[in-house]
């Protein structure tokens, strides 16, 4: 393979993603973290890898099969990328299982959470299991014979199966196989009666133990667990699906049976078993992973969240009520009095839900418009929107069915909203609607007032507890009219027309960012101080990376806080020596996008739903909102600066592409800053201060906020 001699200026995005997952894995490996916290991180790495294989590896395999050989910006062809991914992921999987088997499992057992093997069961447990097996496990499993001549039964994506091998029938030479599904409705973990500890056994151990029950008269030679990962990089072809709702339903169906991109099989399985499965699923050995431990570590998440065992967990952090918000006053009045900026989950998401719930009941409200991307199944927001529509308000919900892996859930509430009389719009053709905005149109004495919530996160009250995101609520006229224009455009009422303050992808975000970076470049050239701080999840867009390089060369100081993929190479002389990149991996998933430009002291700061990826800037509907209200702007600047200064939970990207814990960097004697901890404590402190203040005034008794 020829490689160009020209030095490449970009890191490969897939490998950069693997680096991110590695940083999460390091948290699982870090003995300073509480045990169940480590188990949670381990489970997250497994879940991340699943998604990575389904989407990225699946996509790359298709590209390679299509015979495309074009190298990406980092100089790697699809084949080279796949090979590198294989190597790195195999290594990562080894580390995952080393961590689980050699550290976590023994330590958990010592802490009172014991995984028991079949041979270790005591009499009482044995009896309990026997009964459970006969009543609840045996009846729901039907083994299916597998033969190469017969059509392959449906092996569902990401589901656990047990493969059983039998000797050939008399007169035949080929071994025989059968498969048992361990998927729904079975639970992976079975708790067993035990004293003073939590003892559990894995379902596969139980089934293996009793495998003979299904096959009387046959002797199983061996059995092994396996799991298939299918390509999910299939998108609905909108030109073919006139009705997106049914199109999306068929995508879900298709995804269940698309080609296998990864086959995981227990390491104890014999070669012949592996070969049999490989040919059955048309999977080459390079895509087969032999797993030395329990498959699907993702399943361990509920165990990490087990009740009790607080000594094995981090101290709970509860979202704090923002002292900016008076819970006895309607939200619209408070927004009318001053813009509100919230930082979740340090501060509670409740005010956002309350804004929508109150609007649903408010007789002065004419219309509510809302984008729903990923929302939780029992969302109070959905309920509020349905209520509002039922009481005759004009309610528009832009439901993005294309939110990956959430499609099924999305279809459900979309239908529910339609039944309630909500005008449901299923996204924009060819574009995913990723913007997060809610608009409330209210008729007041002085005229129409528009209340808007702009966010960096989805309207999902359950992920809002784990993702750190910014909410901004305002009734600024320009921001309100921009929200109207946005909805008119995405709902097809109007061609996109002049937005006053916000920018919208795919129309204007990239160009606006280029203008802003150019501004700093020009200022730096004229000898002014020039600085850019950026916080996002992923930085991939080549045009913008080139622009940042140009800015670095012009002397602009650039600090990047990129949680996940970063294709920019920092700290390279004559290219990017003024750029530093850190990534924070902490107990919350960093999710806010904040862009800051110094502008010679006239600081400008934006929140956005968009990462700097071609996908977000060209193929998604995204928003970028300037935060101009002085207190909110100051707060936001503090937020991004504090994150950029994190030395405890941050990793620094070196120019060779490796990530090193910032604290471990040589020559740094910086004060310890754990930004997530800082914001949590700040939120608690604010509540305490507010409580002190209210104590001096007489108010009706209300429930205490103490956790």
């Amino acid at each position, binding site marked *: 393979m020829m490689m160009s001699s020209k030095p490449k200026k970009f890191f490969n995005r897939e490998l950069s993603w693997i680096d991110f997952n590695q940083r999460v894995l390091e948290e699982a490996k870090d003995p300073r973290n509480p045990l169940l916290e480590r188990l949670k991180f381990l489970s997250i790495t497994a879940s991340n890898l699943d998604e990575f294989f389904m989407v990225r590896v699946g996509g790359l395999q298709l590209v390679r099969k299509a015979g495309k050989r074009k190298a990406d910006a980092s100089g790697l062809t699809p084949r080279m990328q796949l090979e590198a991914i294989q190597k790195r992921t195999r290594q990562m999987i080894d580390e995952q299982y080393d961590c689980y088997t050699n550290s976590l499992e023994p330590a958990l057992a010592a802490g009172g959470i014991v995984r028991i093997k079949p041979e270790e069961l005591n009499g009482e447990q044995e009896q309990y299991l026997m009964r459970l097996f006969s009543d609840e496990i045996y009846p729901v499993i039907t083994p299916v014979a597998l033969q190469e001549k017969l059509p392959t039964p449906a092996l569902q994506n990401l589901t656990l199966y047990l493969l059983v091998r039998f000797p050939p029938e008399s007169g035949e030479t080929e071994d025989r196989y059968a498969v048992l599904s361990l998927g729904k409705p079975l639970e992976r973990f079975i708790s067993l009666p035990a004293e003073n500890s939590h003892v559990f056994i894995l379902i596969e151990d139980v089934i293996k133990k009793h495998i003979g029950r299904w096959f009387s008269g046959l002797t199983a030679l061996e059995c092994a667990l396996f799991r298939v990962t299918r390509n999910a990089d299939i998108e609905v072809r909108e030109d073919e699906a006139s009705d997106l709702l049914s199109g999306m339903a068929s995508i879900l169906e298709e995804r269940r049976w698309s080609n296998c991109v990864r086959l995981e099989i227990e390491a104890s399985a014999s070669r012949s078993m592996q070969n049999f499965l490989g040919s059955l699923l048309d999977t080459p050995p390079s895509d087969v992973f032999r797993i030395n431990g329990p498959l699907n570590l993702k399943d361990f998440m509920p165990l990490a969240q087990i009740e009790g065992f607080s000594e094995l967990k981090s101290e709970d952090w509860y979202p704090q009520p923002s002292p900016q918000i008076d819970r006895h006053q*309607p939200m*619209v*009045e408070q927004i009318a009095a001053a813009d509100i900026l919230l930082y979740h989950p340090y501060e509670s998401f409740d005010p956002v839900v309350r804004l929508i719930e*109150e609007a649903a*009941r*408010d007789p*002065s409200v*004419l*219309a509510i418009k809302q984008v729903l991307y990923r929302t939780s199944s029992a969302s109070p927001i959905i309920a509020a929107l349905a209520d509002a529509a039922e009481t005759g308000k*004009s309610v528009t919900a832009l439901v993005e069915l294309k939110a990956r892996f959430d499609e099924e859930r999305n279809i459900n509430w979309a239908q529910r909203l339609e039944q309630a009389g909500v*005008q449901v719009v299923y996204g924009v053709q060819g574009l995913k609607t990723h913007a997060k905005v809610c608009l409330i*149109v209210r*008729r*007041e*004495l*002085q*005229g*129409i007032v528009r209340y808007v919530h702009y966010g960096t996160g989805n309207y999902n009250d359950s992920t809002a507890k784990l993702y750190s995101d910014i909410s901004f609520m305002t009734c600024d006229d320009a921001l309100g*009219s921009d929200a*109207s*224009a946005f909805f*008119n455009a995405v709902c*097809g*009422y*109007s*061609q*996109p*027309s*002049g937005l*006053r303050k916000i920018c919208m992808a795919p*129309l204007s975000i990239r160009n606006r960012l280029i203008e802003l970076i150019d501004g700093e470049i020009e200022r730096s050239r004229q000898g002014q101080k020039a600085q850019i701080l950026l916080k996002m999840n992923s930085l991939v867009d080549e045009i913008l990376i080139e622009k940042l390089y140009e800015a670095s060369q012009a002397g602009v100081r650039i600090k990047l806080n990129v949680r996940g993929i970063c294709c920019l190479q920092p700290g390279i002389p004559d290219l990017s020596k003024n750029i530093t990149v850190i990534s924070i991996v902490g107990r919350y998933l960093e999710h806010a996008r904040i862009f800051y430009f110094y502008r010679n002291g006239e600081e400008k700061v934006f929140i956005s739903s968009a990462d700097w990826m071609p996908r977000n800037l060209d193929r998604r509907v995204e928003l970028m909102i300037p935060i101009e209200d002085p207190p909110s702007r100051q707060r936001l600047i503090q937020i991004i600066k504090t994150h950029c200064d994190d030395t405890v939970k941050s990793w620094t990207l070196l120019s060779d592409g490796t990530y090193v814990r910032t604290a471990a960097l040589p020559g740094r004697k910086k004060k310890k800053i754990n930004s997530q901890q800082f914001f949590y404590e700040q939120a608690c402190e604010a509540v305490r201060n507010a409580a002190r203040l209210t104590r001096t005034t007489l108010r009706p008794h209300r429930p205490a906020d103490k956790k």
Partner: protein
Amino acid sequence: MKPETKTHQKKSTPPAIRAVIDIGATAARMMIAEIDSGNPARTLEFLEQSVNLGRDTFSSGKISSETIEACVRVCRDFSEMLRQYQITDPACVRAVATSAVAEAANSDVLLDRIFMASGINVEVIDTAEINRLTYFSILPLLQMDPSLCKGNLLAVEVGGGNTTALGLRDGTVLFAHTYRFGSFRTREMLEDVYLPTARFRDLIEGEIRTGIRPIIEPFANEKEMKILILGGDARLAADQIKPGWNSRPSVSLRVSTLARFTDQSLEMPVEELVKEYHLPFAAAESLGPALLVMQSIPQMLNCKTVYIGASSMRDGLLQEMAAGGAWDERFTQQIIHSAVEIGRRYQFDQDHAENVAARARDIFRVMQDEHKMLPRYETILTVAALLHDIGTFISNRSHHKHSRYLIENSDIFGLSQQDRTITALTVRYHRSALPRSTHTDYTRLTRVNRLRVSKLAAILRVADGLDRGHVQRIRNPQFLLFPDRLQIGVSNLRDCAVEEIAVSEKSDLFEQVYGKRALLVKRSPRRK
């Protein structure tokens, strides 16, 4: 939840919400705005969707059924938005269509379909109304930028089918014309001519120059000129050349910069225009000719800069709705000014014309309780009075009939076709025969309009009689209304024998319409 209102906030009703819709050659647009007395309108929503009306009408003369359905869909969306703002009263919505609908053979089908499907009643407006609305739309712009008011200003809106030109000197309207010349019309005309790009451009430029010549003709010899261009294509050009300008009411561009942008856009295929400027196809197709028109006007007038205005006909519509259909003082003055200009063209006796106009106004006011007409009819009466004799330019025989068709066929700024017809017929009856059932032009009017003509003509006849001698002998007449008569007191009755006879002769229609005689009496010095 009942929000408390802040104590200092005065209790009143919320500002009114109005919607205006215009259906043009390439797009249908709706604006919903709040109108609060004294304040500029506040736009709440602006919707724009592309339609292919121009392409259909200007190429085949009729609107295809697909386009009709597309328009119906757009209007349904508009009506959904009206519902969101709870705008249910049809009086709060004004929907108009311009040339692309007006000239289609099947415009009725379209308008009926839209009304049936969306409840929106679209009216086709004539060129005089477009002129008036264009004037209304640039008014706020002139107020905000007084430098535009100084000297000569040519305001041009290049539409898909028509181009409206408004000439102003020191803020006063000199002329207002709408020409059957537009970007889409030009483009469609050349649709079937297959030529290489360069030749295409030559041809189209030739067409444009021919089209523009009458527009700029009144200003052809002026040295100091300002040019203000309105319309969607102009706004697009300004957006590209000076992004972010639209927070201001207008922006100035160098003509050379505009020309460069035009060159660049003309070289781009339509698909690229769509992608680059985020345009719908219909708008992209007519962009080139529109830009050529915009740059050719200043070039032909040797101007180096050109102003682009942010306002549109919709602003004019809103202004008019805010005023509740009444014409403000300034606008009335513009109409009268325009009438005087026409009078001059036909060498009218200005002193006589203005005297008759003043007397007619006096009588109109004193008779208010009798005729109960809106104030705008006072303006129409004034125009009729100013122009009643212009027919003598053609011939002294039956000059009232010549006056009539001159008025009907003149662009009197601010008057719609219907206003002009009423004016013309009022003039026609200022002398000689009274309205009769055999006068078909009169009987063709609606009853309300027939009455208007009679009421106005009755007054005009008396007012004309008061200056029969054309020497303005009667000064400060005093009008007193009695149950049986309108008494006109003059101090120098002895000098006014001619007028006295004329009034008594010419009060025939007055008596017939109002049941009162008009008569001249000697004014008693003691009465007020």
